[in-house]
């Protein structure tokens, strides 16, 4: 049986096309990945999130995942406003997630030359099955084939917020699909609904920031 990837790694796979090109803006993706890592920690019971605040539950033992451990250390040292660790972790969430996926053999580095001159590096899925697996839960939940668990509800919410609904390859109008994804997230746990909403706000705020 294949080991399930952390939530932010699944989201990373969904947020890139087959050539490794990002489908959404870097700042939106980074906030989504950091939010996903915090959601994973919340669902594992390592952190508690309530009314916009976050704190570590019990002793903060490392998870072995770079993004999650970075978040955990930060929440342990400075509990409080939940937006702060997400913004903080977003700074290098893309790079850390990508490196973890490369280390796990899920992504491979491909270097090409544009027009035979300019070298470019992309990170593509070693096996397309990993991308299919990343989206299968969300697809099943939307189609009603399977009752979503809280992790799946969280992924659905983030896919909706980051407007990655096209990557589910479902024959539904985008607007309706996003509404359905958000409904699924809302029907998850209170923490899922709250954190998805926080990521949504942060993504919007990043879009109207004075400086990038």
């Amino acid at each position: 049986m294949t080991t399930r990837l952390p939530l932010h790694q699944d989201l990373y796979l969904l947020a890139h096309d087959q050539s490794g090109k990002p489908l959404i803006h870097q700042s939106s993706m980074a906030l989504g990945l950091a939010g996903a890592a915090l959601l994973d920690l919340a669902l594992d019971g390592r952190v508690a999130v309530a009314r916009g605040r976050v704190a570590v539950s019990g002793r903060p033992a490392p998870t072995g995942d770079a993004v999650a451990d970075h978040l955990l250390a930060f929440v342990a040292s400075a509990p409080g406003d939940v937006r702060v660790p997400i913004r903080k972790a977003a700074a290098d969430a893309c790079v850390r997630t990508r490196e973890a996926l490369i280390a796990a053999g899920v992504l491979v580095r491909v270097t090409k030359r544009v027009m035979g001159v300019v070298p470019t590096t992309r990170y593509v899925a070693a096996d397309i099955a990993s991308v299919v697996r990343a989206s299968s839960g969300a697809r099943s939940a939307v189609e009603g084939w399977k009752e979503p668990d809280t992790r799946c509800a969280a992924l659905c919410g983030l896919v909706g917020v980051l407007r990655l609904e096209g990557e589910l390859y479902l024959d539904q109008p985008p607007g309706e699909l996003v509404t359905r994804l958000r409904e699924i997230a809302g029907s998850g746990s209170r923490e899922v609904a709250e954190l998805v909403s926080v990521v949504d706000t942060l993504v919007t705020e990043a879009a109207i920031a004075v400086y990038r």
Partner: protein
Amino acid sequence: MRPQESIEQFGYRQELRRGVGLPDLVFYGLAFMLPIAPFAIFGLVYSRSGGMPVLAYLVGMVALLFTAASYAQMVKAFPLSGSVYNYAGRGIAPPVGFLTGWMVMLDYILVPCLLYLVASIAMNASVPQVPVWAWLVLFVAVNMVINLRGIRMTVKLTRLMIAAEVVVLALFLLIGGWALLQGGGRGFSLDPLFNPATFSWPVVFAAVSVAVLSFLGFDGISMLVEESTGGSEQVGRAMRLALLLAGALFVTQVWVAALLVPDPAALLRDGSDTAFYDAAAVAGGEWLRHVASTATALSWGLANTLVAQVAVSRLLYAMARDRQLPSFLAKVSVRHSVPSNAILFMSALSVALGIWMSARDDGVGLLSSLINMGAMVAFIVLHVSVIVHYALRQGSDNVWAHLVAPLVGMGILIFVVINANVLAQLVGLVWLGVGAAVLLALYAFGRRPALRDLPPVPSERGAS
């Protein structure tokens, strides 16, 4: 106090904020105001002030220094918000916040339109074969694409932009000064500062009502309070510094230009949108005219619109998020991380209004007056917010900062509004009336204005 202390202890503030220091805050304010802002409205200020543009700019600077002081107080009280809409809503009451936001919206949504129009007039002065309306459509199209692609000002780009504008300004001042020394123009005179033959306070304040346009944007510094390395104190300092610097630059350039005006009587009588370029031509010839007009076109039509678009998007977002404007204005494109609906809305509005205004002889003057009217009314409410929040609610004993200074600032601005263009006053009143009607409708539909709660910042709140 404990949470704040622990955040500081673990370096939270340092890492959360992206480290925009005092110089960059000042640069941002200058980028928003534009060091060469008077190039475009010099003729208008000259004619309205009876040939005393220097006095108009000095009075405008003093008035806005009081406004900056009130901004500094409200930023201190609400360090996470960045608009007079929020300050009035939180400092007085949400319905007042709505009406203030509505009035300042007149400023924010018309500013891009004015920027495009001025840039188009400047380009038309250099390339008259292309009509103003065609330049306007081109500027809007280029900006829309740039904005929708997510290209944004950076700290580095802001510095570069300021440096380039200062170089053009220095060129004009050097050549203009040299021309005056060589007997060009009318030689040195105090007339641009004070001319007893034309002086009267209503005339000066009528000119101030236009000249303040050049200073609008200093308030944009408050948007960077979360990124400021020195917090709200530094934001207040940056506002004052930016205003003083801009004031010094504005006074110097309009003084030199006023002495170089080729036909003062005609300019006083008729006004002109290209008076500064004519003065530049007197100083250095046609090439300096083209340098001045091209610099105006690029800085107003490209660089400043980038900054203005972000500012208007933030206001539209803040009001739409609080359900005081249609929610579609708050939608963003995740793909490009831009407020796409606000950009499209502003582009459409700018084309429609811009083409209309380009067909009017008083287009620039009218737009400037309307923008200033919106800003002045909002600034007056800002002063009231300081008095209500600090003096009345908190019983502050800092009489100067929380009562006298806001009252003086408010008094000057009221005098400016009273002496402003009558049409601008009328449109301003109509706009306010529409705002009041919208407010009543919001109440009728059970959507009374309410602002989202801000996390309290105990260490800064209530500081004097």
